[in-house]
């Protein structure tokens, strides 16, 4: 088991109380990040998906985080700085000189 998988499993346990209610949203958001970044392994993802199917609080937290991250990614991608014209050629010239 990788460090990340082990961390996921342990953190997941800390997020819920004995009655299976979400009690630590901050920690849960760290798990959401791993899932959204596609870094959770199959077992961790299955555990996570089962929870967001059955727990309203977890589902709502996941959807909020997903929406915010997607909006940030899209808007940042839209304002990438333009590469100055001639830079690629200037690099090519400098290595052939």
């Amino acid at each position: 088991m990788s460090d990340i998988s082990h961390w996921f499993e342990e953190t997941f346990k800390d997020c819920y109380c004995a009655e299976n209610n979400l009690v630590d949203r901050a920690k849960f958001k760290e798990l959401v990040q791993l899932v959204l970044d596609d870094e959770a392994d199959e077992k961790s993802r299955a555990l996570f998906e089962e929870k967001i199917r059955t727990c309203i609080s977890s589902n709502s937290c996941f959807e909020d985080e997903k929406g915010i991250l997607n909006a940030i990614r899209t808007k940042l991608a839209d304002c990438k700085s333009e590469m100055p014209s001639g830079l690629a050629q200037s690099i090519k010239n400098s290595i052939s000189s």
Partner: protein
Amino acid sequence: MSEESAKKYTEKEQNEVFDGEFMPHVDSMYSFAYRLTFDEDDAKDLVQDTYLKAFRFINSFERGTNAKAWLFRILKNSFINEFRKKSKQPAKVDYNEIESYYNSDDVDSNITTDLRVETVQHMIGDEISGALNALPVDFRTVIILSDLEGFTYEEMAKILDIPIGTVRSRLHRARNMLKEKLEGYAKEMGYK
């Protein structure tokens, strides 16, 4: 034998690797350099310097491996080791102090945001970009690498030379810092 002198590629192969595997990333490299330096000329110099180094050490690059990550690592090291020292915009913040603060265990209890999806959707890219640019460089970097360039945690760990667990925690903290800035900005601008 040094990496520079260990000849693995012929001159023709070197040009093939350079043109075929390195040059397609020049756009992303410039974008990364600009977000580190905030200056067009400095960014151009940093990218030029990176490509010169990449050519000089081309024999240490394994064809077919991740050229983009290899180039980003060189650029990041050039920025830290040489560029930041002579930058027109010297660092005004003690990054080590910030890093140790944000890596402390209780940091997440200090940053709690109530940012809503709709708020982010109301913002324009420049506002979000401005908030990103206001983050300390180490935190800005992980967001750029992950959310703009799409690197995996493993690739980021290699580029930044830090453990994968640190990538995870730093990225989480960086995103929280960004959300906090966006939330503050939204309040200032009267966004609901």
